[in-house]
């Protein structure tokens, strides 16, 4: 009875674990903002997450915004395309990716070709120019620039599709269009990320490469003393002599030394012994 109860409890526990982890991973994939450079107001991050859900429901175009300090020399458009590919692999092929590389002052947007019927990349570039590459970034007001970009994006989609969104007062407040008093708060670190993510193009790959290098160097350093010993070679040779080296049909065979030397020679040839 006890055993049965324990089994049921264990099964339930495992089921909960699987459900929670699936929920967590799906939440991670549905994230609208990865503020690795820590430049965005936490309330804006939350607002964008809700806004992205509305964009998906109304126009099937959610957004994914990633901020980093540097790309280490990589082209920002190539980075945006790689990010889009990662989002597609995570089950979000329809997302509009906006990459903001703060330290390099470079910004890029991209989306899948299937989305470009509703909104061309040229139009998105235009919105980016109007918001990011001009007024607000003189003061490095990334919150204002991003809010303005998203509002203009929504206005453009509304004009093209005829479907409108509910008023976005907090976004308008961040964009400076509505006098809304915003709580003062600094950007929070992204949970589950490290400062390395904002400064290296792919810090995870860099760490994996470093680990692999350490392992390869360790393996190369320990590459000695392997193989069978001289005693083992002599023993193998003697055993072979005993099995195959006896006189047969009156003919003489090799003596034990011959078999031992022969085994040693083979061990050298095949590298059984260093």
């Amino acid at each position, binding site marked *: 009875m006890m055993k049965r109860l324990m089994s049921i409890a264990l099964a339930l526990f495992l089921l909960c674990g699987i459900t929670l982890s699936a929920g967590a991973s799906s939440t991670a994939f549905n994230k609208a903002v990865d503020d690795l450079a820590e430049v965005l107001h936490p309330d804006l991050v939350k607002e964008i997450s809700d806004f992205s859900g509305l964009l998906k429901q109304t126009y099937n175009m959610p957004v994914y915004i990633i901020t980093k300090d540097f790309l280490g*020399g990589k082209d920002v458009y190539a980075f945006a395309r790689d990010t889009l590919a990662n989002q597609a692999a995570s089950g979000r092929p329809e997302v509009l990716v906006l990459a903001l590389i703060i330290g390099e002052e470079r910004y890029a947007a991209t989306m899948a070709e299937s989305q470009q019927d509703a909104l061309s990349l040229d139009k998105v570039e235009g919105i980016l120019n109007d918001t990011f590459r001009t007024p607000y970034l003189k003061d490095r007001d990334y919150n204002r620039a991003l809010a303005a970009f998203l509002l203009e994006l929504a206005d453009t989609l509304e004009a093209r599709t005829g479907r409108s969104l509910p008023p976005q007062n907090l976004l308008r407040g961040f964009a400076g269009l509505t006098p809304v008093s915003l709580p003062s708060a600094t950007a929070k670190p992204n949970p589950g990320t490290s400062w390395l993510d904002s*400064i290296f193009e792919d810090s995870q790959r860099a760490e994996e*490469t470093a680990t*692999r*290098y350490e392992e390869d160097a360790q393996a190369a*350093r320990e590459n000695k003393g392997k193989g069978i010993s001289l005693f083992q070679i002599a023993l193998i040779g003697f055993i072979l002599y005993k099995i195959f080296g006896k006189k047969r049909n009156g003919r003489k065979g090799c003596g034990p030394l011959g078999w031992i030397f022969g085994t040693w*020679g083979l061990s050298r040839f095949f590298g059984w012994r260093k």
Partner: protein
Amino acid sequence: MKGTGRAVLAFLAMLVMLAAAFAIGSYRGYLNEKLNVEMASGSLDEVLDARIEMGNNLLTVASRHVSQDDPLLVSIQKQLHALKGEGSISEKSAANEVLGQDSKALLTQLESLPSVQNDARDLRYVMGLLPRGFEQSEQWADAQNYNAAAAAFNDRLNGTINGYVARLLGIQPAELFEGGQGQ
């Protein structure tokens, strides 16, 4: 007599075959070891990408505050070019060492500039993220592991009869990566 002649021939043949087996075994053994050392060298080469990234990041920030013909800027560009190229381990090692020294000097220079002092973002980069990033990339590209493997291989190659035979048959000592100090 006939039997004695055959025995002598057989004995000589055995010696020749043993010598050949010894030589081939030495060559193959040390070739495999050399390949393992080269695999570690290849991994180190990949890890150097992190140094290149940090160099590019520093150049991005520095370009906003110093002129393009600043000697440190020019030198760092040259070292990055060497690290990205197909040069030997020695060349990359030298470039890595100079990169470490020059990046440290450039960061010190940037810290003292009024234009950086007046820019909160770039000041944060110059005093925080960039030095930490360089330090981290240096830890990843710690050449000591590779050098220990290469030095051990060279000791065996130069210090044993097997190694002497392998060298005669064309196995070269491994190059050491000397550098990565300073930043």
